[in-house]
């Protein structure tokens, strides 16, 4: 269930300075910002929904689709780039059949590009639900994704 009303109770309806903290709270709790939640924020702060959507789409930290059960973050920092993260991303896109910031139809995987995640020694690196996978190759990536799919089936 979406938790929006409870979050809004913690914020005064006066003043738009609360907008970003509210959106962050909703993002943290629900994992994404639904249309319904954005409209409710608009009602609460008495701000046009177009404005809220404008602010929310400005920042990468907000997503507009629910995240998958397994959230895949691909590091596109310098070290990872030099060691081939572009092809890792490409491989992931074709394996999962989604683009960055999308979620697969079965709701299992979502994909996100992140700047350096501070594990340059492991480059190219991806993180799935916070678990790091080091020195990724096109072959290993399929294996990793398969493992998660199997985990789901068992």
């Amino acid at each position, binding site marked *: 269930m979406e938790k929006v009303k409870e979050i809004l109770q913690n914020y005064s309806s006066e003043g738009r300075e609360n907008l970003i903290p509210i959106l962050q709270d909703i993002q943290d709790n629900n994992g994404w910002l639904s249309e319904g939640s954005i409209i409710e924020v608009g009602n609460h702060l008495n701000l*046009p929904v*177009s*404005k809220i959507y404008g602010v929310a*789409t400005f920042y990468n930290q907000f997503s507009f689709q629910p995240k998958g059960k397994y959230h895949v973050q691909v590091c596109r920092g310098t070290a990872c780039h030099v060691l081939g993260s572009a092809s890792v991303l490409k491989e992931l896109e074709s394996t999962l059949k989604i683009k960055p910031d999308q979620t697969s139809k079965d709701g299992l995987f979502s994909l996100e590009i992140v700047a350096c995640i501070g594990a340059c020694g492991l480059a190219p690196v991806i993180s799935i639900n916070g678990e790091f996978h080091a020195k990724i190759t096109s072959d290993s990536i399929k294996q990793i994704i398969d493992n998660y799919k199997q985990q789901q089936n068992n």
Partner: protein
Amino acid sequence: MKISINNIIHEAEKQETILDILNRNGIKVPTLCHIKDMFPSGACRMCLVEDTISGKLITSCSSVATENMKIQTHSPRVTEARKTIVELLLSNHPDDCLYCVRNKNCELQNLSEELCVTERRIRGNKNSLSIDRASSSIVRDQEKCILCGRCVRVCEEVIGVSCIDFINRGSKSIVGTAFNKGLNVSSCVNCGQCIMVCPTGALTEKNHFSEIKIALQDPSKTVVIQYAPSISVSLAEEFNMKPGKDINGNINAALRKLGFDFVFDTTFGADLTIMEESSELIQRITNKETLPMITSCCPGWVKYAEEFYPEMIKHISSCKSPQQMTGAMIKSYFAEKENLKPKDIYSVSIMPCTAKKFEGQREEMTQKGISDVDAILTTREFVKFINMFGIDLEKLQPELTDSPLGTRTSAGKIFGTTGGVAEAALRTAYFKLTGKELMEFKINDVRGLDNRKETKIKIGDLELGVAVVNGLGNAKKLLEEIKAGRKDIHFIEVMACPGGCVGGGGQPINMDTEAIKIRAKSLYNIDDNASIRVSHKNPDVVALYTEFLGEPLSHKSHKLLHTSYNMRKVIL
């Protein structure tokens, strides 16, 4: 305070921006994001000038002059920078000027020419964004958008609707609605003020050309046209005549040349509106019904109320607008007189307005599934229509409108400017309540371009409070006062656009406050020189009631001339 501009000393006021000083002294500096009389945003950088003391390029729109400043407005550095900005704007532009509705009337095109952009130095990836045609009034072609933000600001600051804003960031930025949906499900009220400020062809009206051309070719159709009170004073300058000149005779002649079978005047419908609306006002006062009563002529305002103030709907007059009243009479009274079937009449109107296109297709504006009005042209489209058919408007011999829906009084004519509807309604209400005509027929307190005008009119024992607002942002403030319990206002006129219809979103591009003033003045001149200045004396309106409608607010009037409004659930 003194500052040096291009090595010449100029006087400057305190807090005056450099751009204002330049404009005051006839020095032209290009702008794109700037809107006169609005707070500068400094986003587009076109108005750069060189501050030769600091050596910096500064935006003249947002920089305030300081003592002994030295400015160069057209130094090589400045012109090079401006040119680069235009080249960057063009780098991802569709470049389809020849196919663009704003060809020869585009600020980007003009700047490109002015700054001598003659080759493509910067190649960027073209955008591929879909065209939003979902609205019945406004089309958005985002590929042509240069992100100046003027539409966003007008929608928020003048109209108070904010249905669009910037979405995403950096190179992915676009102007769009909430959740980037079609304009039709947004809170857009179709006023078209965004089109008026758009420098390019990113925002245009939904074109009704082809349907009208087909109807004109169809022998089974009787094609009838009406034009709004403000039209005759709004397009002279488009044909090299004096701005504001009343050219209704030439328009009548042109419309016949275009092939319209009957030429009527929406001003007749305005007179009819006054008959119904003044009766409704008197009825509401006598029966102690909901007050204040608010006018319903402006479809932008009506949709705004349905979205933002559904609790105030009961305040809005049930009268259809003059366009719809004329349309309803064309397909009933006129059809009966001419022995025509309503379905064989194709009814067109020319409006200074884009919201009229929306109004025309409202479900409430039909009788047995047949629309009161079939197609609506904006003033801009009408100008194109005339040019397309090779008509030299200035040289035409003026002609009269057709009977019976062509006779008008000057009371209906002043509908075209803010305050006009209120004044016309009060003239007739005064007569109906006292049996006497209002002295000099003038209510100066409701005239002029102020955001809000208020007055009290003594009619017999009754003291009537009247308020007139233009620009929906100003309506909002007044409505909040009424909601908070203000009781001294009985009658309110609301127009969505600044200045009323003479400043409408369907008017020729490049309109400024001066043009609005000249058009308004021209309407009041027509009124000053008119022989009939009250709607209740319009002989054709009197005949219409005798022959067909009975009396104002009769059963037949209600069926044909009145409507209802409903709360509208959109994304606010």
